[in-house]
């Protein structure tokens, strides 16, 4: 039998030293932003019952979940997402809590990705959920937190908003089967104009079909709203567009003119439980979104508590990748001193080291038998000071 005792599973990796510092810096930065806005941290289990993710709407296809069984043979999964477990907690233990609830998390999610594609199966996500408010101010609270989260890393970023309602309104007016609706959604998501046109043409021609054909092209700046209004003369859609336009203007004001903000009315991803506004964030130099979120007013009701919510998650691994790619490695904390104990003086040496630590220094205990090796080691590791504890005397060099 082949042994796999020297490698890590596909899609995972060990992080060492500087990599950990970057990881923790990102996490601390985001945690600071979230808690300064009154969000409180939650930690949910890494293992959940499969049923939590197997709701009617099946946002996570079962082939992408890591599964195992508990001692009673019940099916468990490694958490593929944090929002659904949080929805579960809100619908149960937090059912009587004062609203709105402002929650944040910073934890790993697991999804199986196709092998040999350079993707991670284990991703750290940091995000917020604002639960129990349908006000525009709630959307803005979340979006401005998203802006600050991306700004914090000092790299060029771009934000995008959309609204699933435009697609839902339009496709709701089409008299076609659910599987055809799903095909339309897929083609809009991939902006596959040729195939979308062919499929829609087979359903005839009217103003709804004409609008659906144009939907994936409705992305860009402010001009998108006018184009969309002209193209889709519908009261409900107009209402949605007005709401979105307002948000767009607010974001432009919050970000300043040097940040690229776009609208895409063709954002219609499958795994989204979103019911309203959708937000995505991109960093220059990363091929996928690094932030994604939106309004999900129906998700928690699937757990039996009908309450609106809005939130987003940041892909911490992606941010780390961009930081490393840009060569922005942090300085490793340096060691100020190493304390060497002569035979019999070990306790005194431990005490001496502690005294130095109290002064704020980073101090190692020497783990060699002779002072010569300690000096060589200190030179190699660029430790400025070697302290020798010998009987009652203490000698510094």
């Amino acid at each position, binding site marked *: 039998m082949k042994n796999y005792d020297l490698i890590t599973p596909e899609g995972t990796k060990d992080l060492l030293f500087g990599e950990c510092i970057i990881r923790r810096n990102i996490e601390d930065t985001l945690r600071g932003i979230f808690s300064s806005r009154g969000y409180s941290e939650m930690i949910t289990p890494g293992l959940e019952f499969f049923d939590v993710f197997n709701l009617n709407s099946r946002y996570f296809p079962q082939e992408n979940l890591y599964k195992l069984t508990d001692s009673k043979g019940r099916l468990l999964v490694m958490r593929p997402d944090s929002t659904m477990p949080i929805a579960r907690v809100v619908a149960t233990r937090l059912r009587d809590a004062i609203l709105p609830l402002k929650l944040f998390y910073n934890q790993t999610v697991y999804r199986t990705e196709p092998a040999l594609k350079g993707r991670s199966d284990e991703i750290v996500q940091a995000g917020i959920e604002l639960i129990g408010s349908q006000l525009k101010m709630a959307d803005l609270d979340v979006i401005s937190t998203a802006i600050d989260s991306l700004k914090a890393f000092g790299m060029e970023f*771009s934000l*995008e908003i959309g609204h699933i309602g435009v697609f839902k309104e339009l496709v709701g007016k089409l008299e076609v089967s659910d599987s055809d609706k799903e095909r339309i959604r897929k083609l809009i998501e*991939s*902006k596959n104009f040729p195939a979308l046109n062919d499929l829609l043409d087979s359903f005839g021609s009217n103003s709804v079909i004409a609008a659906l054909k144009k939907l994936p092209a409705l992305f860009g700046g402010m001009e998108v709203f006018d184009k969309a209004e002209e193209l889709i003369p519908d009261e409900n859609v107009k209402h949605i567009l007005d709401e979105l336009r307002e948000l767009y203007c607010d974001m432009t004001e919050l970000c300043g003119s040097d940040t690229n903000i776009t609208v895409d009315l063709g954002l219609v991803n499958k795994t989204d439980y979103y019911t309203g506004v959708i937000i995505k964030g991109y960093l220059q130099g990363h091929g*996928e979104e690094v932030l994604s979120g939106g309004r999900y007013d129906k998700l928690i009701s699937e757990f039996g508590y009908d309450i609106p919510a809005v939130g987003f998650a940041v892909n911490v691994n992606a941010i780390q990748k961009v930081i490393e790619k840009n060569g922005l490695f942090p300085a490793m904390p340096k060691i100020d001193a190493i304390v060497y104990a002569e035979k019999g003086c070990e306790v005194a040496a431990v005490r001496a080291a502690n005294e130095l630590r109290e002064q704020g220094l980073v101090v190692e205990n020497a783990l060699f038998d002779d002072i010569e090796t300690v000096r060589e080691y200190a030179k190699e590791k660029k430790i400025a000071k070697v302290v020798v504890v010998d009987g009652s005397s203490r000698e510094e060099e």
Partner: protein
Amino acid sequence: MDKPIRIALTKGRLEKDTVGLFEKLGFDCTAVREKGRKLILPIPDGNLEVVLAKANDVITYVEHGVCDMGVVGKDTIMEMKGKFFELVDLGFGRCKFALATKKGYDFYRGYGVKTIATKYPNVARSFFEKKGMDTEIIKIEGSVELAPLLELADGIVDIVETGTTLKENGLEVIEDVAPISARLIVNTVSLKMRQAEIEGLIEKIQANL
């Protein structure tokens, strides 16, 4: 000037057709035509950089965003899948996926599970899945036509252009699976970050198809 838009081309015929298209747009493609063994080549007046890659790799590079755009056949897209925008049907590189058997073989007869040989297992699987048919799929790397002749498989799912190879080996197409042509794909982030440039290029391309 901004850094050039990187476009990955599938080496071979699609590459030649795309370069032909670029020349029609008025770009100077001398560097690509006289490439020698170089793999990354500039088209300075279009602010473009051409990357030459195998079909599957075009998708990989575009998905990761190390290339902004790519030209790749629908056959590869159907087999590989992936997350990107499939914006334009370029119209060249036309052919089709088809199901072929030995001439006169009654493929759908009987209830036994059929064996299919193919270079495109995902395409074959989803084709028969839609029919609700269980099939055994065997991946073949070289000339798939051999499999039914050697009686390893009942049929093949493969790319058919003229059908000459099939005919010369006593095989025939019994059903079309899907039409194929070259597609222009774009990374999902690049389209948003560099919208004006990419849309400008696409407009020019569409006007010259």
